[in-house]
């Protein structure tokens, strides 16, 4: 690679790359994001390579291994170019057909197409599948068309043109003004206006300043930052370079969780490639601006996603937060002014520079501009990553894009904002998504996790789950968080085990208030949110657990009993054989009965009972019907 020394050279090499590419050449793009790899896309990819060679098609067709397309549940995903046929759930045995179809334009392979569940029609193109059709993929859109390991792919889609524009014709103040005007708010949780954060750092007196990418995506159920860093690492780097230029920083860090090995690999490779082209390092594109980036791997601590804890971890110490009397954009890493934004925020920056703040602010709501990537997961038909304009309603996201709740179950709540967020019930589904709207509903935007829950999800257990998670992740530095959460966890666990008592709810409220008021960092301050929001909307479930010793969702293991309905039991012996503790009594033609003394409530019988019999029931808060008398157990019907 040649080192580029002027913006003109960048444009020349871009032209060279594009001119060498034939847009009509057949290209099979295969999703190689982490979820698709787990579903077998590496085997599929290897199969395609062999097949192309075997069929003697090396000159006619190429394979491009891209990042995450978003529709993770249907992986591995292939889109054939130029006709853009989209195939889902690919298995290695489908490969030879796909290769011949791509090149010879043979009949489209019906069985691998998406079937619209409502009309039963087959859909050929990705853009027409309802999951994609209602999205606005500005930040995430390139993921499916470029190889994240190739900087040339990124250059071919106009990559680094924003850096070039900034370095050749904009002053740092111009850049800062543009970002401020765009009203870009941080996508990592707090939603703080990025431009104002940057300005604070720019105006700080210290000479040395840092810019940092927070890729310590710790919220369980959120993985958009992973998908961006894995699938389009250069877009994040480009945003970081622009930010560094605007605030006058020459050193940047990328703090990425070690649980994301592919993201670590791809961002390291991207940095090397950018350095070789002279897009990072000394005198970038001949502008005189120097900027260097290092990658730091997190070692597994949720609290390190908190800005001050992250900076302490970067210094090579234990990631504990500090009080923020002075904000980290004034006194951060090694006590120097430091701008920390998350992956998605940085990836928005090139877009704003290229298309302008005026264009950007047309998208979204009054107080939340642009788009947001959500990870739509849990009890939802179309699981995956979705990017929508701010202001879309939860209902549209869950039903139009997500395809609703599977198995004909009823929607109960959607949990947003990770462990600091809350649960939003069904009657608020018309809420438009935006930073302030979600906060007003008792939840928050957070990093964009959206976990859908159906009627089988117990809301008390959800609160217990999050508090338990945060108890485990509390760094232990301040008392309200360390001790308060531990007590809340104990009380909530008791409630879900049927040991709740009068006054528990009030005690939980007092503990919540203290943790929210007196904790040192956002982890503790926001920790009570999952409890508070579930109490606000699902108080009846708490009361049923405490007063009636009943779990209305039939979820809490200690509060339910399994029971075989004698009217429905066909004595088929399936549950009898599968029961791991031999708690089921019965024989052929003899109605099965569960020995409640032996039963461990594992639920296996419930799972294996054939749907046509549907004989195993869960009961909670009511006495078990007395067993069928021995003489009536033989089935004569």
């Amino acid at each position, binding site marked *: 690679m040649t080192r580029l020394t002027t913006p003109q050279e960048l444009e020349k090499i871009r032209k060279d790359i594009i001119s060498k590419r034939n847009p009509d050449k057949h290209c099979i793009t295969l999703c190689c994001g*982490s*979820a698709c*790899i*787990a*579903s077998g896309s590496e085997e599929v990819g290897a199969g395609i390579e062999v097949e192309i060679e075997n069929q003697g098609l090396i000159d006619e067709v190429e394979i491009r291994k891209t990042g995450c397309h978003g529709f*993770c*549940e249907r*992986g591995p995903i292939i889109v054939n170019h130029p006709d853009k046929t989209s195939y889902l759930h690919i298995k290695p045995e489908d490969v030879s057909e796909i290769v011949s179809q791509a090149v010879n334009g043979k009949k489209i392979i019906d069985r691998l197409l998406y079937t619209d569940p409502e009309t039963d029609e087959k859909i050929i193109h990705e853009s027409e599948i309802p999951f994609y059709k209602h999205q606005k993929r500005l930040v995430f859109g390139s993921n499916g068309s470029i190889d994240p390991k190739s900087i040339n792919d990124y250059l071919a889609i106009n990559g680094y043109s924003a850096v070039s524009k900034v370095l050749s014709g904009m002053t740092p103040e111009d850049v800062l003004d543009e970002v401020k005007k765009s009203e870009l708010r941080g996508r990592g949780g707090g939603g703080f206006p990025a431009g104002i954060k940057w300005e604070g750092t720019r105006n700080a007196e210290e000479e040395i300043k840092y810019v940092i990418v927070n890729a310590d*995506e*710790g*919220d*369980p*159920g*959120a*993985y958009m930052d*992973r*998908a961006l860093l894995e699938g389009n690492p250069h877009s994040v780097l480009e945003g970081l370079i622009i930010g560094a230029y605007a605030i006058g920083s020459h050193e940047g860090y990328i703090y990425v969780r*070690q*649980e*994301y*090995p592919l993201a670590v690999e791809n961002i390291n490779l991207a940095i090397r490639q950018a350095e070789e082209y002279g897009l990072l390092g000394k005198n970038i594109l001949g502008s005189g601006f120097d900027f260097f980036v290092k990658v*730091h*791997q*997190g*070692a*597994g*601590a*949720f609290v390190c996603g908190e800005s001050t804890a992250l900076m302490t*971890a*970067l*210094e*090579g*110490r*234990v*990631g504990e937060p500090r009080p923020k009397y002075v904000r980290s954009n004034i006194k951060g890493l090694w006590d120097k002014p430091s701008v920390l934004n998350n992956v998605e925020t940085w990836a928005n920056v090139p877009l704003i520079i290229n298309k302008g703040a005026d264009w950007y602010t047309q998208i979204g709501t009054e107080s939340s501009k642009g788009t947001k990537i959500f*990870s739509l*997961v*849990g*009890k939802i038909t179309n*699981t*995956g990553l979705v990017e929508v304009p701010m202001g879309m309603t939860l209902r549209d996201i869950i039903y139009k894009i997500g395809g609703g709740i599977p198995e004909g179950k009823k929607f109960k709540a959607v*949990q947003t904002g*990770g462990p600091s967020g809350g649960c939003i019930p069904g009657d608020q589904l018309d809420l438009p998504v935006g930073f302030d709207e979600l906060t007003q509903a008792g939840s928050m935007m957070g990093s964009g*996790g959206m*976990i859908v*829950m159906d009627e089988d*999800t117990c809301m008390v257990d*959800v609160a217990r*789950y*999050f508090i338990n*998670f945060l108890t485990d*992740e509390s*760094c232990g530095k301040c008392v309200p968080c360390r001790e308060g959460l531990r007590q809340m966890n104990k009380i909530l666990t008791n409630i879900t085990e049927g040991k709740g008592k009068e006054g528990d709810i009030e005690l939980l409220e007092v503990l919540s208030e203290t943790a929210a008021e007196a904790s040192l960092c956002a982890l503790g301050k926001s920790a009570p949110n999952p409890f508070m929001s579930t109490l606000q909307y699902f108080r009846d479930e708490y009361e049923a657990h405490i007063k009636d010793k009943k779990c209305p969702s039939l979820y809490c293991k200690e509060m339910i009993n399994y029971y075989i309905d004698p009217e429905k039991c066909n004595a088929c012996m399936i549950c009898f054989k*599968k029961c*791991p503790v031999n708690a089921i009594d019965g024989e052929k033609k003899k109605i099965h009965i569960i020995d409640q003394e032996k039963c461990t409530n*594992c*639920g*296996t019988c419930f*799972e*294996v009972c054939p749907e046509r019999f549907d004989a195993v029931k869960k009961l909670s808060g009511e006495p078990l019907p007395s067993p069928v008398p021995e003489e009536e157990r033989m089935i004569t019907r």
Partner: protein
Amino acid sequence: MEFYLGMDNDKIDQIVDRHKGEASALIQILLEIQGENHWLPRQALERISQRLHVPLSRTMHIASFYKAFSLVPKGRHEVHICMGTACHVRGAKRILETVEDLTGIKPGETDVEMKFSLETVNCLGCCALGPVINVDGKTHGMVSVSQTEGVLKNYE
């Protein structure tokens, strides 16, 4: 069975040198040692502290604070059960209970034959495939209780 108590000092020095002996790289150095050796022997921690001029107490603080580090030897296969929210609502708890029954160990433990070490993790970012079991870095998605035994059987 091989059960060694330490790690070659030369190897440790190589890793420390790669990070130019900078104390701020302590976590990165420990991660590399953990990655290579699968656990952090005391002798290795002492050597690192000495080389970086960092008190052993600080190295221990870090090694015990972060989840990625283990101060005891690990089994041949590392089983990680995802307990993230998406996996949780899809029944991760029951998968964990099944793995506990099958292996006879709880999270954080290693069985006596040193075959499996069990850990829970909070989100592997494969939420679409939940519930998820990860063994030695390979992800098994959409696992049901009855399939769990089949997943573990592949490992000796």
